[in-house]
């Protein structure tokens, strides 16, 4: 950043900071109240809380009638994002290496194809996969959603990993090959450690994407047994008659906390992805 430590004379930062703060106010308010409302009591027409309570967190120890158990749903979510992440990591770290270093037939075509695939709207995949799963009777299972979600994340993963492999100096591989290691061995023990930042970035991205994914589980696995947190929460959102914002917010915060922790710990890795681009 240019002269970030010493703002020069023709510029004062406080008016800009004030302006930006005002623009950011809606966001700040929303996240502030997301936390506040889950632990406090508030009169219906009041803006400020009047007391502390843990009542909004009751979903943790009692199951709402007609809803799935929160811990079961959390486990499903964890399973879903963890499986998706591992699948994406394994598959794209292999494919990325091939596209970066090895000469396979139709390599350029594959790369361009992956790029174009990234532009495909997910609604296409959902409609067709929904019909196919209905046909073969695999609707409402977690495995189907995991595979679909991993496939959707793959193009980005492959491109990202290819980019990271491209930056690894080829002397490392040359040395390995000259010493008599097989190409696979070279990849496993020499190249893979070099692209750790990429793997971290992709892992975090896939995990967050899987954790937050809504539309795929909603359509392909809405059943109580395989429900994930986003679908669970959306169940409250779609229920217009019964609006207990404070409890929804408690569920929401419960759902958001892992994301915030992961982000706080690893955000420098994640920037590699968001800087490069993702959907949104």
């Amino acid at each position, binding site marked *: 950043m*240019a*002269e*970030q*430590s010493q*703002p020069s004379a023709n510029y004062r930062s406080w008016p800009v900071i004030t302006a930006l703060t005002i623009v*950011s106010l809606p*966001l*700040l*308010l929303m996240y502030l109240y997301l936390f506040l*409302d889950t632990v406090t009591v508030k009169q219906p*027409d*009041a803006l400020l809380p009047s007391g502390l309570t843990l009542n909004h967190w009751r979903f943790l120890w009692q199951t709402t009638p007609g809803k799935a158990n929160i811990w079961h749903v959390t486990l499903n979510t964890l399973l879903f994002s963890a499986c998706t992440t591992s699948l994406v990591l394994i*598959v794209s770290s*292999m*494919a990325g*290496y*091939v596209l*970066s270093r*090895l*000469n*396979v037939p139709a390599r350029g075509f*594959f790369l361009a194809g992956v*790029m174009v695939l*990234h*532009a495909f*709207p*997910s*609604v*296409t995949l959902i*409609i*067709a*996969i929904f*019909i196919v799963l209905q*046909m073969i009777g695999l609707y409402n299972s977690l495995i189907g959603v995991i*595979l679909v979600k991993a496939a*959707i994340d*793959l*193009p980005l993963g*492959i491109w990202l990993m290819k980019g990271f492999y491209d930056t690894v100096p*080829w002397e490392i*591989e040359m040395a390995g090959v000259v010493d008599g290691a*097989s*190409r*696979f061995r070279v990849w496993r023990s020499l190249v893979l450690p070099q692209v750790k930042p990429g793997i971290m970035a992709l892992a975090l991205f896939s995990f*967050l994407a899987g954790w*937050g994914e*809504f539309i795929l589980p909603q359509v392909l696995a809405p059943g109580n047994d395989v429900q994930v947190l986003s679908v669970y*929460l959306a169940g409250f959102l779609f229920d217009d008659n019964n609006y207990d*914002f404070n409890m929804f917010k408690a569920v*929401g915060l419960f*759902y*958001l906390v892992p*994301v*915030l922790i992961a982000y706080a710990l690893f*955000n420098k890795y*994640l920037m590699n992805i*968001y*800087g490069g*681009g993702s959907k*949104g």
Partner: protein
Amino acid sequence: MKSSRTLGLVMIAPAAVMIVLFFLMPVVLTAVFSMTNMTTATGISGGVYQIAPNSLIALKSAMPEIATEMAEPRYTIDEAGLKAVEGLGLAPGIAAELRAKHTGEVFPARRDVERMIKDLAERPSTREVKQISEQFNRSVLNTRFDSKGQLFSALDGLGFQLTPEQKEIVAKTTYTGWTWTSDNFSRMARSPDMARVLFNTVLYVALVLTLFNVGYALLLAILTHYMPPTPASIFRGIWLLPRITPVVIYVLLWKWLAWDSGFISILMGKFGYPPKNYLLDTAYNAWFFVVLINGFIGASMGMLVFSSAMKAIPKSQFYASEVDGASRWQQIRYIILPQMRWPILFVTCYQTLSLLASFNEILLATNGGPGNATEVWALSAYHTALRNYAGNLEYGLGAAMALVLVVIGVVLSLLYLRVFNYGTLVAQPLIED
């Protein structure tokens, strides 16, 4: 060497398999489904042949006489009916005589068969005649046939004299499953609803893209560029929150803000305004929030891309301009913006596609409402195929709508690959052995 090639193929195989199975296949299947009239009413795995009242109405325009005949019951003296007559416990001679003299006969109307039964040697009573005739009622109406062959043999057995062409027409109108058709596309071209949805989509993409994904993102990047590092990273952190927050919570927060028991309502209540649902109140309000909701998410990516591009501008340019007495505005105008051309183009291209395909936020926030005011193309495809309040999910039409998005996506991204000089992206690999 061959080994590297084999290894390459092995290592890329999982990706290829997954992409083909869960990415390409669905797209191809979408194209296939878009050429059918598949709905929940027709089912998804083929249907049966059933001469139902509504298929007879359809048949009436093509073949009025045959349709009328089919609507009437027919009476066939067959073995099943004879067995049933024997089971009625009437005089045994009746069944025997029917079997001997009348097996295989077909009577087009109840009156005819009852006249025949009355003329039997045993002379059954009127009540018995009705009982007996009922056993031979072989109406085709509402019977299910699993295949064309069964339908035709039933029609032949009942004495319908149909030419092969007529049979085909009957088969077509009585089929309850889905059929191949290109109606979906002509429907899309004609429907005023679709035109409305298309307009919404263009408006949505244009507004979010220019106001937030590019405009506001650029503003954020420039402002934080000139800021001391601490506030800069705080603001970047704040504006990244919407992107990392799961979409369901993020939309929940907006609903809390705009709902009739939400923050804005309470705040406005302090000034004497009655509470109302600002999100779904009017079409304008709904649009306002839809643009904000999506824009706040979209701003972050542009901000990151632009920030990192600005970091790459050599600092000496800023120092030199400062010495020459340039103001901040002049620095932005003559140093930053000219060098932002490629990042802006990239963000524009990339986000156009993302926005075209995105519908999660709108689905959760307004669900296309109020009315159809915020229904965009992707959401409409989803509604048509998977969540239709009319009850009948039109898979075929929904697939056709999704296919339109695919075509637009492919065309645009091929265009972008050209713009961004695809050749440099796929330069030959570093090592070849």
